[in-house]
C-alpha cells in the first residue's frame, strides 16, 4: 500500500502539496471547509513574484532574496527564503504550462509589473485576479489526479485536531462533517496543515470568512509551537465595509496609482514626498503607518474621516481594464463609484499574518513529528513584514516542499499507532461538542467575537502600546470567561453553522492571546510591529523568533525565543 498523506486545506499551499505528494506516489486525502475551488486564495489580486528578469533590468534571485529579507526586517530565516527565491522562476513556468492566463507582452512572453518593496518588475499577474487563476490551475490538476484515483477530497469537513501518540507524533486527524455533523478520526502516515490565515480574529479584515486560524490554534493547544504571532500585516489600501474590508491591491499602485489627501486645498502626495525613491510602492507597513499619521496625527483624512484617496484616474483606461479590471470591478460593485473617473477612498485593513505554526528550516515539519505545515498558516518566509506578491509564491513553494517531505517521512516512519489514541481523541472532541450543546448560559458567541475583533484591531495592529496590550490580554481573558457561559441559539444536529462558529471562536480567543502577548513582550519596532515607546529595531535583544507554547496548567501561552538564521545577508538598517 502507498503511504497515506492527509492534507488539511485546499488553498494554494494545500493543493500544491497534494499535487506533488500524489504525483510521487502518495495516497492523498484532502480536507477543506469549502470546496477547494472556493478557498481564500481566490482573493489574491495583484500577482506572484519571481525574478525572471524579462524586462532587461538585471533582476536576479539574489535581489529577490535580498528584497524579501530586508522587507521582512531580517526576522526571516534566510535558508528557505533563498531557496524559495531561486525556485520561483520555475514555479511561474510550471503555472504557465498549467494554463494560467498570465498577461502577455507583445512578444507573447509573460508580462511583469512592479510591486511594493522592490525597484524591479518582478510580479507576474493574470489581470487583477491572479490568486483565482493560480488556484484554479492547481484545482484543475488536483481534479485530474482525483479522476485518476490518487486524491480523495473531503469537502465541507472541518479539521478539529491531530491524533497524537504519547510522544507527540502525529498519526492522523479528527474531523467533523459540516453537514451531517458526525465526528470521525482518519489515520494517516503524515499530515500537512495548510489552513491559511487568521483574519476573523480581527473581526473585519481583507480575508475570507473561513480564515479563523482555528486549526492552527487547536494544534497549538495540542503542543505545536506557534511562531512570531505578533507579526500582523495591515494593508494600506482597503475599502471599509460592514461585512469585510475589501482589498484594493498594491498592483493599483504598481501600475501607477497614487495615494493622496487634500492639504491646504491641494492634493498632497505624501508617500511620494516622504519616500522619493520608492514613492507609492514603499512596503506595506511603511505605507500603513504613513496613512495613519496623515489621518490621525495630521487630521487630514478625507472630510475628516479615516480615509485617503487612491487615484488611478490619470491612467489609460484600456490599460486599467486589461491589468486591473478585477479590482476596479470590485470597487464599482461594492461602492458604486467608477474608479476610472473618481479617486477611490481607502483605509488600512488587517490583511495577513506573518506568524504561524513553527516549521523547521528544511522540510516544513512542525515540532510534532509527522505533522507538516505550509502556506499562510506557517511562519517561515516573511519575517516581520511580507512583501506584496510574495505570499502566493511562498504558499506554492512551501506546499511543493511539504508534499514530498511528508511522503518521505511517511515512507521511513510507518508505525502502527494502535487504535486507542484514535478512540481517545474522538472522545475528547465529542466531549467538547457535548459541552457546547449543553451550555445553558446567557452569552452570545457573536457578541464575544465582535468584542474580540474590536480589541485586536484597536490594540494589536498598526500602533502598539504596552499598557493597551496588557489591557487587551486581560479583556480577552474575560472573554474566555464569558465563553464558559455561552448559549447556542441553535442546537440542532444538522448543518448547524452557529455551532461550528462558536467552536472556532474558542480557538480564536486562545490564538489572540498568543498575538497580544508576543507583541507585549517584544519591546522594539520591527517591520509591521511598531511601538512608539520603543521606536527602533533592537537586534541585540530582539533579533529572535518568538515561540509560543501552550502551557496546559496555566491555560495560557508560554513564550521563548529562538535565534534567526542571518548567515547570508548581513544585517543593515531598514530605510526606504
Amino acid at each position: 500500500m502507498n503511504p497515506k498523506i492527509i492534507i488539511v486545506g485546499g488553498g494554494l499551499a494545500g493543493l500544491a502539496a497534494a499535487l506533488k505528494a500524489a504525483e510521487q506516489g502518495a495516497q492523498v486525502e484532502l480536507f477543506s471547509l469549502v470546496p477547494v475551488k472556493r478557498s481564500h486564495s481566490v482573493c489574491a489580486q495583484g500577482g506572484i513574484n519571481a525574478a525572471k528578469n524579462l524586462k532587461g533590468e538585471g533582476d536576479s534571485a539574489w535581489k529577490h532574496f535580498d528584497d524579501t529579507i530586508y522587507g521582512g526586517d531580517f526576522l526571516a530565516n534566510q535558508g528557505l527564503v533563498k531557496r524559495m527565491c531561486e525556485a520561483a522562476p520555475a514555479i511561474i513556468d510550471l503555472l504557465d504550462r498549467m494554463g494560467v492566463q498570465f498577461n502577455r507582452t507583445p512578444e507573447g512572453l509573460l508580462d511583469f509589473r512592479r510591486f511594493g518593496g522592490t525597484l524591479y518588475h518582478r510580479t507576474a499577474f493574470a489581470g487583477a485576479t491572479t490568486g483565482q487563476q493560480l488556484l484554479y490551475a492547481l484545482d484543475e490538476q488536483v481534479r485530474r489526479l482525483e479522476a485518476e484515483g490518487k486524491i480523495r477530497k473531503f469537502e465541507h469537513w472541518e479539521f478539529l485536531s491531530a491524533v497524537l501518540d504519547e510522544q507527540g507524533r502525529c498519526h492522523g486527524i479528527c474531523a467533523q462533517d459540516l453537514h451531517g455533523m458526525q465526528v470521525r478520526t482518519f489515520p494517516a502516515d503524515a499530515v500537512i496543515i495548510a489552513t491559511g490565515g487568521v483574519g476573523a480574529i480581527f473581526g473585519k479584515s481583507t480575508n475570507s470568512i473561513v480564515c479563523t486560524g482555528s486549526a492552527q490554534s487547536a494544534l497549538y493547544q495540542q503542543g505545536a509551537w506557534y511562531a512570531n504571532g505578533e507579526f500582523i500585516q495591515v494593508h494600506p489600501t482597503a475599502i471599509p465595509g460592514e461585512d469585510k474590508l475589501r482589498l484594493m491591491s498594491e498592483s493599483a499602485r504598481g501600475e501607477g496609482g497614487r495615494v493622496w489627501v487634500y492639504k491646504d486645498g491641494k492634493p498632497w502626495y505624501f508617500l511620494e514626498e516622504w519616500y522619493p525613491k520608492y514613492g507609492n510602492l514603499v512596503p506595506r507597513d511603511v505605507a500603513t503607518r504613513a496613512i495613519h499619521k496623515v489621518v490621525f496625527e495630521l487630521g487630514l483624512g478625507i472630510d475628516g474621516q479615516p480615509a485617503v484617496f487612491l487615484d488611478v484616474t490619470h491612467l489609460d483606461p484600456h490599460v486599467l481594464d486589461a491589468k486591473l479590471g478585477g479590482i476596479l470591478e470590485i470597487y464599482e460593485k461594492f461602492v458604486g463609484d467608477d474608479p476610472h473617473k473618481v479617486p477611490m477612498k481607502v483605509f488600512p485593513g488587517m490583511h495577513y499574518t506573518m506568524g504561524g505554526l513553527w516549521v523547521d528550516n528544511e522540510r516544513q515539519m512542525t515540532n510534532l513529528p509527522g505533522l507538516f505545515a505550509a502556506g499562510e498558516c506557517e511562519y517561515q518566509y516573511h519575517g516581520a513584514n511580507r512583501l506584496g506578491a510574495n505570499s502566493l509564491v511562498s504558499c506554492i513553494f512551501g506546499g511543493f516542499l511539504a508534499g514530498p517531505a511528508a511522503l518521505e517521512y511517511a515512507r521511513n516512519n510507518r508505525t502502527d499507532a494502535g487504535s486507542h489514541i484514535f478512540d481517545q481523541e474522538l472522545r475528547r472532541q465529542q466531549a467538547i461538542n457535548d459541552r457546547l450543546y449543553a451550555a445553558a448560559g446567557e452569552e452570545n458567541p457573536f457578541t464575544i467575537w465582535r468584542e474580540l475583533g474590536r480589541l485586536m484591531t484597536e490594540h494589536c495592529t498598526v500602533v502598539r502600546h504596552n499598557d493597551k496590550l496588557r489591557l487587551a490580554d486581560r479583556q480577552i481573558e474575560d472573554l474566555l470567561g464569558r465563553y464558559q457561559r455561552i448559549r447556542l441559539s441553535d442546537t440542532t444536529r444538522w448543518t448547524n453553522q452557529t455551532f461550528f462558529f462558536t467552536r472556532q471562536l474558542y480557538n480564536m480567543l486562545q490564538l489572540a492571546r498568543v498575538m497580544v502577548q508576543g507583541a507585549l513582550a517584544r519591546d522594539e519596532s520591527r517591520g509591521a510591529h511598531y511601538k512608539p515607546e520603543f521606536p527602533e529595531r533592537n537586534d541585540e535583544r530582539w533579533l529572535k523568533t518568538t515561540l509560543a507554547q501552550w502551557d496546559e496548567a496555566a491555560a495560557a501561552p508560554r513564550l521563548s525565543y529562538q535565534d534567526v538564521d542571518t548567515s547570508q545577508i548581513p544585517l543593515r538598517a531598514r530605510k526606504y
Partner: protein
Amino acid sequence: MAEGKIVRLRIKRQSGPQAAPQWEDFNVAYRPGMNVIVALMDIAAQPRNAEGQPTTSVSYEANCLEEVCGACAMVINGRPRQACSALIDRLEQPITIEPLSRFPVVRDLVVNRQRLFNDLKRVKAWIPIDGSYDLGPGPRESAADQETAYPLSRCISCGNCLEVCPQYNDKTGFVGAAVLSQVRLFNLHPTGKLHAGERLDALSGPGGHQECGFAQNCVNICPKDIPLTDSISAVGRQLIVHAVRQALGS
C-alpha cells in the same frame, strides 16, 4: 431598533434535505452600504423572526465576500445572484431569498453543487501536463489570445447560469453553460488543444452540447460577464468539425 430604518426579508427555509420548505420573515437594522450577507450575519447573531420569536439562524454559504469564490449564490427577489454583491439599497423590499432550485437543498440556503464539479471532471477541464517537474516555460501566447481566454477562466462555479437554464435537470443530464465554456477555454490553450478530442467526445452524447436549447438566459445572468453563448456556439462548431473528422476516420 424601533426608530432606525429596518430591512425586511422573506427567507425560504428548509431544515433538512427531506423537510418541507417554509417561509420565514425577518427584520434587521439598516446600515448604509449593507448587502444581503450582512443581513444574514445579523440574523445569525440574533436569530429572531419578524414576529419577535426566537428561531434558528439561517444557514447559507459564503466565503470571500467579493464575488470571486462563488459560494454565496442564491435566488434574491427572483433572480439568482451572489448575495455578497446584492446591495440592500438596490433591492425592493421585502427581499425574498431562496436557495438555488436546481441543486438539492442541504439546509435553508445551502445547496449541494457537487454535480457541477463532477461535470468538470467528466469533460476533463484541465491541461494534461506531463508532470510538475521543471520543463521550462509554457507555450507563448499572444496578448490578443490571452484577452480572449482570460474572461473564460474567471468562472467562479456559482451555478447561477444553471439556475436559469431550462435544460439543466436530471432528465437531460445537461452539463450546462459553465462547463461548455470551460471546454472552450481548454480547447483554446496551445497544450489543451492537443486533447480537444477527448473533451469533445465527452460532450457528444446525452447531457452534452446537444441538450442546449439556446434560451440564452445564461449569458444575461452570469455575474462575471462570461460570453457564454459565444462559448456554446464555438464548442458547437468544434463538435461539427470533430464529428466530420471522425466520420472520415482521421
